[in-house]
């Protein structure tokens, strides 16, 4: 009896070891790509992967989100091949990468406008960058101040692991100064995903939130934003982002370790191709060309 138990146990361990070996990443023969990073770019990455797979059915592409920082951290630790990021790498990350012998190769593959959205029942249509700043700093607390109805403003923000959160903070709250000290009002709700911001905005007339242009839907109302009190109010459209007329826009990056080779090179070439850039447009981001 005991002997069979022992045998089973050994067999189990062997099998387990086998699975572990099979699951180890970047097996050259199977041609797989691990992509990780920005939640904003997950859908875009997925669409690229599907189209790429039609041309190269032998390549296995796995895409996961988790935030730009997660992707960059994974690239540094060697657990992914390509990091999707909606922000530039930071000094700290470059240092960590150097310590582990990783050299960032930067590819700007698309542009993104961050849309500021309110509930469709809210009469407010236009806001200036300064007004946005005051709202998200928590200094303007009621829609009445902005000429709207007498309702409290409920702030919706992404969590700190989101590239969108960091970009909005640096670009709107800190007016582009990375080292500023302004922070989101403590009362701002930290939502775990862009989807939850969209949901809460659609259901609650008090809210104001922000998300990547890809999430724009008729269930939320997009606010037209002006750089300052004198400039025109501009909606986040393809043309407005590409011409840099819309004030809250940013590049989207793919990072690799060193110059991309083999299948990773093929994938990035595909991303830059006409087909790849058409997909960018289809997923509601802005193509670079």
């Amino acid at each position, binding site marked *: 009896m*005991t002997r069979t138990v022992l045998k089973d146990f050994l067999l189990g361990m062997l099998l387990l070891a086998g699975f572990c070996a099979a699951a180890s990443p970047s097996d050259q023969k199977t041609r797989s790509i691990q992509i990780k990073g920005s939640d904003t770019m997950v859908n875009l990455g997925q669409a690229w992967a599907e189209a790429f797979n039609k041309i190269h059915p032998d390549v296995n592409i796995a895409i996961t989100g*988790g*935030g730009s*920082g*997660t992707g960059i*951290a994974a690239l540094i630790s060697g657990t992914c091949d390509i990091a999707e990021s909606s922000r530039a790498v930071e000094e*700290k*990350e470059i240092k*960590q990468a150097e310590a582990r012998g990783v050299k960032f190769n930067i590819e700007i593959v698309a542009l993104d406008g961050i849309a500021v959205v309110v509930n469709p029942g809210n009469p407010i249509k236009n806001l200036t960058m300064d007004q946005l700043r005051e709202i998200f700093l928590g200094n303007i607390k009621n829609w009445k101040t902005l000429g709207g109805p007498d*309702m*409290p403003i*409920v702030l919706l923000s992404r*969590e*700190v*692991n989101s590239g969108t959160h*960091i970009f909005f903070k640096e670009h709107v709250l800190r007016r582009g100064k990375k*080292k500023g*000290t302004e*922070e989101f009002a*403590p*009362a*701002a*709700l*930290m*939502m*775990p995903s862009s989807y*939850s911001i969209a*949901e*809460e905005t659609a*259901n*609650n007339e*008090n*809210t104001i939130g922000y998300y990547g242009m890809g999430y724009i839907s008729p269930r939320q109302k997009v606010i037209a934003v002006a750089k300052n009190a004198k400039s025109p109010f501009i909606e986040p459209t393809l043309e407005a982002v590409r011409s840099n007329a819309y004030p809250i826009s940013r590049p989207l990056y793919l990072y690799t370790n060193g110059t991309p080779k083999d299948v990773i090179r093929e994938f990035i070439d595909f991303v830059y191709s006409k087909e790849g850039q058409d997909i960018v447009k289809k997923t509601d981001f802005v193509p670079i060309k």
Partner: protein
Amino acid sequence: MAKLRKLKEFLIEKLIFASGIASVVFVALIFIFLLREGISVFKDTSLGSFIGGRFWYPISDPPKLGILPLILGSLLVTAGAVVIAVPLGISAAFYIADVAPAKLRNILKSCVEILSAVPSVVLGFLGITILVPFLKHFLKLPTGLTALAGSIMLAFMALPTIISISEDAINAVPREYKEGALALGATHWQTLHRVIIHGAMPGIFAASMLGIGRVFGETMAVMMVTGNAAVIPTSLLQPVRTLTATIAAEMGEAAKGSPHYFALFAIGIVLFVISFAINLTADLFLNKGRKR
């Protein structure tokens, strides 16, 4: 042959001993690991400003690592859940154990088991689509993402624990107590709330504490419905951020070796210590109940 059997006996004994001691070793290792990683946060911030700090801006430069709003958020959500789940759970336990007819009792018991099997992310999903909009409109709040929504979700999660352990405690009360009370002319209700409840009290208390432990450590559903704003809460109708949700939401991003990373481990220590205290209290009462 006898020698072989002895060897076998010896091996099995040691193997079982190792399995038995394993959980102790694991707990110790987990705590040591947490302590080792978490203690480094105090190079950047003092214990007082960590526990008592009012602002949580972990990725700013310099970071503000005050977890007071998070501790209070966790305590508030837990307290709310306790107020809802404990009376409901104990009443349900009494009904199932002592009042319900046998057929209904079996149905109820399986329903309680099913309730405990619902994954918390599913409850959170129901919360965000049904409970949150309902609370907002019903209570006319600026937003339905509040501590109250978290408390209600968590109460559902604590109920199965509270009901099944309380029910065991009630069943463990010697039959003679009940028979004696009834023989003395007490009504069923008098027997219940004057006699049986006293016999079952330590077990019921332990059930409640275990329920609280479950609630305190819960993450997913809470993160989805409480709004996660790191403010010091003044009422249940306000968004809060809990300790668990903070770790879950931020661990993916925190750069290894940064103050933020260490702070999240230090939050882990705080959680561990509080959960440990809750479970210890529950254990003490369970043992007290057994001795009687």
